[in-house]
């Protein structure tokens, strides 16, 4: 045995080290470590399975685009537009992510407020039904009225709501405020249309006069935009009125940057030129019961006067009027903005009145009358569908919010002021604890896109009624509740008889499809092969349903023209318009709030309460879309206010203040502050980020319930 000496030990250590280096061990170890870095257990693994293609349609906004889903093991991994169909927007492209959104609700919840933040506690569905029925009883006992805020009116569940409400005090269905196409209700009133609704015939229009309609940011069917942008624009001209050099202004043939709030004057100025130069459709104009008064009113607003108010040169106003008259048919739109909402009543009336004097109402390439879709079942009476501002303030004791098929952005105050001061109840149906549903006391978890059958009635800009169905591709999540079943349960608990034999949403949709089949009018467009066949050739209601579930769309026969004998050019806005026409001056800014706040949004930012977290590519990982905390100013305005881009500031209105970061752009009118109403932290999937005051909550609300512009100021933080 050798002695253990220090030297031997050192030798041993050295030898071991050399031996270790010479062995495969270290090399294998480094290799394994490197491979380990490629296979971290926390890296998600994509699914495996058979690849299939399935058809459905997007239910995330009223456009209802056809969708071809690539599925693995039956579950969609990507969505695209089928060949020949309009391309999907970012919201639609990522719609298959929504069932997994972190804000997804899988149980009914009660919303509580604790220390500035909202929390949810699970409750049983039965409790929600009982409390809702109790609120109905309280309303009947005189506490207030019952209303439903319907974010997607026109579905068969909307019919079910109207049935439920028909016997209740003040029962009314309120179409979601600020939604696209809402201004058509104003035109319907001007045309005195009793039943059905108006549709837009973009396809045959030669001129589109858009007062603020953000056509390039998702307004109306994507097909319209694709026609304006694509190679097939042909001779259609776009005239756009907007205080911002927006994407729509960028594609317009003529852009009129009227000062915000002067749109009514611009419309009256255009009408003045049209009448003075005898460019109106005399016969159509003569139908207006108040044409004399209108002419007199308009005669006061000369091009020069309009120019002084709007900031648009008089020759430009005259040239525009002539241009419109030269390229008929033309549609004139009072476009809602997905963030900024509607123009006020007066502006909408003045703008849409141009359609009446140009004779665009009821003509191809203008506005067409559309019979409503048949109701799923017959009913003796239905509650009316109204605009929010038709409801008295502080009247609603029970508000039901149907956000099961989508949402919209509006200041909650416009709804809140309709609620009774104390003791009222707000119940929402929504797949998410986000968007409007956050203002409810109780939320019923509705299924989301791809989890259930959704009905897709025609968008407001379709010339004829259509119906599509968004077929489910994913099994409904455990814990969800069907909206129609909820209506049934509430009715049963309140001892209200509902017409028809149905239990679930599908029953209602199937019943409506059967009705359409029975009427037998129109045709069915297949997406797969683009073939159109008359509805009469579809043998059974089931065959029709199957076709619609496979992505086909039913389209009604071409509409008859509007047969209004008596129309109104001023209607209920006569007083306001008189005032505007007599004392119109350029809008004066208050010294305290010298800026004009303009909230704006593309539709794909607000049509759904949440968006796919991947949409951070547009909002957070790039500056393509502004975050809701960015205030954009004209560089000159920023200089005047000594605010440099990148600085933090407080954006203040009479209603409140939010923190913003300053950005500058030459596309913003001097004196204006553009701010995006875009997905906040929760909508993007961050459930742990503190909820901030949202921009719409500080917007001023005008007489007709709009929030399109507010007086504001910026103070450096």
């Amino acid at each position, binding site marked *: 045995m050798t002695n253990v000496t*220090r*030297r031997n030990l050192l030798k041993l250590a050295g030898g071991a080290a050399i031996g270790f280096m010479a062995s495969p061990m270290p090399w294998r170890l*480094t290799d394994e*470590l*490197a491979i*380990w*870095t490629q296979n971290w257990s926390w890296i998600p693994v994509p699914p495996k399975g058979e690849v299939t293609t399935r058809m459905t349609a997007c239910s995330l906004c009223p456009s209802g685009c056809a969708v071809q889903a690539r599925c693995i093991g039956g579950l969609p991994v990507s969505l695209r537009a089928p060949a020949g169909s309009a391309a999907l927007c970012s919201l639609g492209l990522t719609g298959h992510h929504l069932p997994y959104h972190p804000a997804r609700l899988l149980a009914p919840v009660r919303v509580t407020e604790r220390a500035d933040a909202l929390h949810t506690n699970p409750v049983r569905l039965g409790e929600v039904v009982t409390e809702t029925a109790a609120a109905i009883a309280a309303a009947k006992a005189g506490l207030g009225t019952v209303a439903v805020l319907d974010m997607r009116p026109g579905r068969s569940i909307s019919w079910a709501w109207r049935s439920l409400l028909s016997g209740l005090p003040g029962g009314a269905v309120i179409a979601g405020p600020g939604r696209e196409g809402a201004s058509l209700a104003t035109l319907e009133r001007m045309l005195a249309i009793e039943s059905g609704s108006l549709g837009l015939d973009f396809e045959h229009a030669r001129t589109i006069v858009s007062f603020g309609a953000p056509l390039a940011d998702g307004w109306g069917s994507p097909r319209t935009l694709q026609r304006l942008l694509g190679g097939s624009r042909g001779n259609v001209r776009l005239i756009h009125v907007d205080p911002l050099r927006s994407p729509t202004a960028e594609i317009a043939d003529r852009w009129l940057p009227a000062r915000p709030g002067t749109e009514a004057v611009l419309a009256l100025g255009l009408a003045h030129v049209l009448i003075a130069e005898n460019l109106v459709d005399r016969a159509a104009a003569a139908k207006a019961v108040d044409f004399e008064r209108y002419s007199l009113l308009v005669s006061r607003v000369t091009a020069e006067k309009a120019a002084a108010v709007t900031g648009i040169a008089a020759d430009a106003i005259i040239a525009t009027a002539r241009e419109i008259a030269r390229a008929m048919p033309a549609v004139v739109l009072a476009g809602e903005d997905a963030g900024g909402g509607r123009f006020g009543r007066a502006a909408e009336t003045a703008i849409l009145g141009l359609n009446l004097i140009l004779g665009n109402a009821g003509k191809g390439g203008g506005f067409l009358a559309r019979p409503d879709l048949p109701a799923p079942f017959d009913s003796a009476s239905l509650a009316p569908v109204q605009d929010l501002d038709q409801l008295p303030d502080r009247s609603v004791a029970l508000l039901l919010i149907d956000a099961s098929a989508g949402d919209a952005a509006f200041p909650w105050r416009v709804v809140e002021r309709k609620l009774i001061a104390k003791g009222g109840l707000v119940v929402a149906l929504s797949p998410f604890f986000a968007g409007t549903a956050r203002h409810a006391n109780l939320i019923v978890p509705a299924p989301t896109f791809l989890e259930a059958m959704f009905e897709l009635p025609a968008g407001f800009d379709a010339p004829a009624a259509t119906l599509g169905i968004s077929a489910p591709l994913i099994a409904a999540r455990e814990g969800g509740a069907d909206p129609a079943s909820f209506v049934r349960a509430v009715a049963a608990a309140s001892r209200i008889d509902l017409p028809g034999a149905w239990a679930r949403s599908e029953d209602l949709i199937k019943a409506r499809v059967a009705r359409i089949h029975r009427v037998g009018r129109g045709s069915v467009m297949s997406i797969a092969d683009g073939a159109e066949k008359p509805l009469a050739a579809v043998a059974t209601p089931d065959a029709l349903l199957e076709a619609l579930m496979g992505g086909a769309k039913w389209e009604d026969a071409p509409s008859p023209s509007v047969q209004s004998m008596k129309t109104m050019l001023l209607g209920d806005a006569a007083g306001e318009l008189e005032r505007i026409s007599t004392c119109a001056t350029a809008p004066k800014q208050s010294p305290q709030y010298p800026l004009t706040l303009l909230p704006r949004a593309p539709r794909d930012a607000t049509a759904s309460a949440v968006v796919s977290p991947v949409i951070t590519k547009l909002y957070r990982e790039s500056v393509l879309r502004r975050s809701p905390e960015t205030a954009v100013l004209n560089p000159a305005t920023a200089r005047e206010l000594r605010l440099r881009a990148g600085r933090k500031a407080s954006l203040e209105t009479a209603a409140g203040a939010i923190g913003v970061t300053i950005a500058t752009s030459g596309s913003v009118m001097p004196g204006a502050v553009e701010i995006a109403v875009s997905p906040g932290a929760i909508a993007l999937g961050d459930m742990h980020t503190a909820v901030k005051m949202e921009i719409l909550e500080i917007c001023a609300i005008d007489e007709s319930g709009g929030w399109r512009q507010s007086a504001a100021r910026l103070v450096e933080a």
Partner: protein
Amino acid sequence: MLGIGLFAIGLCLIKGLNQTNMDNRFAFGLWIFLDLTVIALGAGAFFTGFLLYILRRDELRAVINSAVVLGFICYSGAILVLMVDVGQPLRAWFTFWHPNVHSMLTEVTFCITCYLAVLAIEYAPIVLRNRQLRKVPSFLVFEFELHKVMPVLAAVGTFLSFFHQGSLGGLYGVLQGRPFAYRDGFAIWPSTFFLFILSAIATGPAFVLVTTWAVSKISSKRLVQPSVYRILAMVSGWLLVTYVGFKGIDTLVWLNRTVPRTGAIPAQFYAWQPFGTWVLFAEIVLFGLVPALILIAGARRRSFALQLTGSLLACAGVALNRFVMTIQTLAVPTLKFEPFMLYWPSWQEVATFLAVAAYGVILYSLSFRYLKLFPHERDLQQY
């Protein structure tokens, strides 16, 4: 400091580089800038070796041990930081396995690894001269053998070092996509290859001077003869003059020939505050020509104060140059419609570097305490 730094390093390794303030534009940040600076200053080691063993300037034997230890600290520290800086340190060896011979970074990696090995071997005899270790006979033999090959090692080290100092410069000079950094060159090497070598060997001795002075101040001991400082200052001064000359020519060629060819406009590089033309002036004159003249004057007039001032300015100059090449290159926009950007390091970045600095100080102090870093130290104490 070491503790906080190790914590920061842990955060970066476990949570990832999101702990830093680097981003897709500032793909390189504080770490790369300081790594390059430290490596340039660490050139004192090989260049002193070169002067001593190859050019036979025997006076420099007084600082060679200290220079080698400094070099070792600089290089090992830089590599430590690099291992935190890369996203996948466990794959670092792929460079040896799948090398791309066209990449300057491959050259840098190979040379620095080899040179660190050389420095370790050069460090060995200094360690072995420790009195305790001297008691082991085989170590004595080993040390003696090493001693014989020292000039060879110095030659190898010199070659490797020249090469990787150059490659570090080449790293930027080859970036044809970054007109601010891109340089014309000779053969396969852009001019920055040579400029980095020159600036490193010019400031290396200055750095040895500064550290020797600092150690002597802290320990209150005289460590070397004034003549050693003078030689270092003289060498540094003249090399710096040469560097400034070439840098001046290079800048003119770059501004008038290279940049216009890439479609960029030189004035745009300096249009973004705070990177105005003052940077160019500071780099070439304030921290280039000025210290060079001060060093030479200091050496001539035997003014240590001037030698020290010049050395400090020279070291600052090389740092500024590495800063400009790393940070300004990335800050200046290439596409006309993208913004100019700035970046501030996160505390994790700063702490990581401070930890490595602390490691350097500790290793140096231990070496100073236990090893004979300055052979003349004992003799000089008698005066």
